[in-house]
């Protein structure tokens, strides 16, 4: 008893006196910090360094080339196409996956029977690796022997959709597969946010005569604001860094119509040309774009968060 009191007194004294410093904290954060430094910070700094170098693929020797790799980018038509594709991909997938996610969350939060089963079904694709999802996509969207085209033909369509040989349809297949993966994530986050919305608010507004749409627009949407903020940032980062699904599903083709920054950086650095310096420079571009977006989002949303 006295010991506990002494301990309590000790901690409170320490808190008041020497801020929050506690040596054992090092033990707790140490492993995570070590891992983050080894696998995030060092490679990231490495990318910055390599992006200003020409790297010999065999010896690994580097020679400084200044901003040459960045200049190459400006004249690289595939890079420009990949940048536009990434932007388009982000603009399409982020709102769609979040909108669908919110709609599903509202549905799952209601009196839907077998809710847990549905929830698992929607969330499941996220648990599977992106490569496997891409492979499943190739079975679905193969234009000769794929399930989707066979189904369309069975339903009486005159011909299959050129999922692999037409740029527009290839892009569509990538978007559809991505939505399939990503909707579950938005749904789970929104579901958690929805459960924190007090039921009384809905009851009160119902008494005041608000209809379903008004309640959704004026209560649900503002109150899940922090979740929306979080999801926008996560989804934009995810979209900007998309790699595995596209790499497996279309490998950037046909032509360059589904090439994104992630796949192009990989191909440049580890493909036959093995230009690791240029690949690193593309990686840095992905980093900078994501950073700018996150900072802008953070700034503009801060005030609204406090209100919410």
């Amino acid at each position, binding site marked *: 008893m006295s010991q506990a009191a002494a301990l309590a007194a000790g901690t409170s004294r320490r808190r008041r006196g020497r801020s929050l410093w506690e040596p054992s904290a090092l033990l707790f954060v140490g492993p995570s910090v070590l891992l983050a430094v080894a696998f995030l910070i060092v490679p990231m700094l490495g990318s910055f360094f390599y992006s200003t170098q020409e790297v010999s693929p065999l010896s690994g020797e580097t020679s400084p080339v200044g901003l040459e790799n960045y200049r190459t980018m400006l004249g690289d038509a595939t890079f420009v196409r990949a940048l536009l594709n990434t932007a388009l991909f982000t603009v399409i997938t982020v709102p769609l996956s979040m909108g669908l996610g919110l709609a599903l969350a509202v549905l799952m939060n209601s009196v839907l029977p077998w809710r847990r089963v549905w929830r698992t079904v929607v969330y499941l694709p996220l648990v599977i690796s992106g490569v496997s999802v891409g492979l499943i996509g190739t079975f679905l969207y*193969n234009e*000769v022997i794929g399930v989707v085209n066979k189904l369309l033909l069975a339903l009486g369509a005159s011909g299959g959709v*050129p999922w*692999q040989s037409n740029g527009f349809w290839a892009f569509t297949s990538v978007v559809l597969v991505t939505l399939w993966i990503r909707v579950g994530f938005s749904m789970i986050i929104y579901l958690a946010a929805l459960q924190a919305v007090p039921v009384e608010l809905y009851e009160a507004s119902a008494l005041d005569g608000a209809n379903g749409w008004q309640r959704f627009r004026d209560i649900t949407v503002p109150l899940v604001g922090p979740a929306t903020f979080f999801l926008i940032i996560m989804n934009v980062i995810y979209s900007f860094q998309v790699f595995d699904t596209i790499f497996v599903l279309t490998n950037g083709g*046909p032509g360059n119509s589904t090439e994104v920054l992630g796949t192009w950086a990989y191909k440049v650095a580890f493909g036959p040309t093995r230009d690791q310096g240029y690949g690193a420079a593309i990686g840095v571009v992905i980093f900078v774009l994501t950073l700018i977006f996150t900072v802008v989002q953070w700034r503009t949303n801060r005030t609204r968060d406090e209100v919410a």
Partner: protein
Amino acid sequence: MTLDRRQLLAGGLGLGAAAGLSACSGLTSKAGGSAPSGGASSGGKVELTFVNWSGDAEKAAFDAVIAAFEQANPDITIKTDTVPYASVQTNLDTRFQAGNPPDLFRVSYIDMGQYTSEDVLLDLSASLDANAFEPGLFSAVVANGKPYGVPHQIDTTAIIYRKDAFEAAGLTAPTTLEEAWTWEQFTDAANKLSKVTKSGQSAFIYDWQSAGAYRWLTWLFEAGGALLTPDLKGPAIDSDAGRKTVDFTSGFFKNGWVAKNSSVKSTTYPDGAFISGTVAMAFAGSFLVPGIDEGVKKKFEYAAMPQPRDVAASTDLGGNAVVAPKNGKNTEAAAKFLQYLVSEDAMRTYCRSTNELPTLKSLTSSDLEFAIRPDLMAPFVQQAKTLTPEQVAQVTVPQFADLNLALQSELEKAFLGGRSAADTTAALAEAVQKAVK
């Protein structure tokens, strides 16, 4: 064939026991003093690492050749590290960058230039007799007059076709190079086959997917064209022959002779398409024959015929060298193995069971008795002889990886994007210029 846990355990125990036994025999033989006097530099046991990619038949053949070598050289053991073809280059780059390259590795002829230009390979002048090999093929491993690897095998493309489809279309297949179809006859045949194929099937598939875009050069060479100027320093593609070839090959897609998803960037491969019965003809390398034989089983009958010809007959330089890095720890033992790998016995063993073609003169002139469907192999063997040293030189320049990539992205635009032949050859010429400058 799936293994259950018990079988795996039993296998593991068996292996363990075998390892134990061999260790014992090693000890006893040493103790008895009957060990052969050291052939390797250090005198003790040497373990070599051999990085390669291989299909099932190739893996088995490598294992057999290695076992024979180890028996003859008890102080050298070879550990193979089989990696997927798609990642072999990254794997090797990483090992080189870490300063720890494998003692031996397999390299496509078209990738040889990447290593010789960096001067990282062991010079094998002392252990190889250039005259023993077919001259056109030996030149694939030579840089600055010295051989930097052994030309282990080649594989060339010929056509594998379904007999039922040919019967239905009223076609007779040529059997020799002299009888090979002209481009006009090929056009006629493809049109006839298109009429007898059902929805979801197509007349043929060409093997230019994956890193195979360079196989398009076969058509260019047939038309009498070239990718590079004779000094290998500039583009020669923007020519009448170049434009004619782009026009003709784009026609495969326009006329619906090939599936749209079998273009140069596609992941649909000829062996898979042929086995699944979606094509009447497949342009395929002989190394695919064992897999096709196993996949088709007896679903339909098929045979092989030579590729069509225009001004000339041609084919692609498929196949691989095996090399050793010059800074390896056991270069002497590695050179010994390479020498053995291209000995007549080892090459015969390997080529017979993989349906790949030999590079030794003594074997190319004899009947090799291939293990699987030997009746299919004549067109491949004949086709291999159409490669000229000048053509080999074009596809083994150090920048060939860039050229191959340029072919892939520019041809895709012509095949699926409908870009004109003139624009395509102009773009290719520009890309070639940039790559070889």
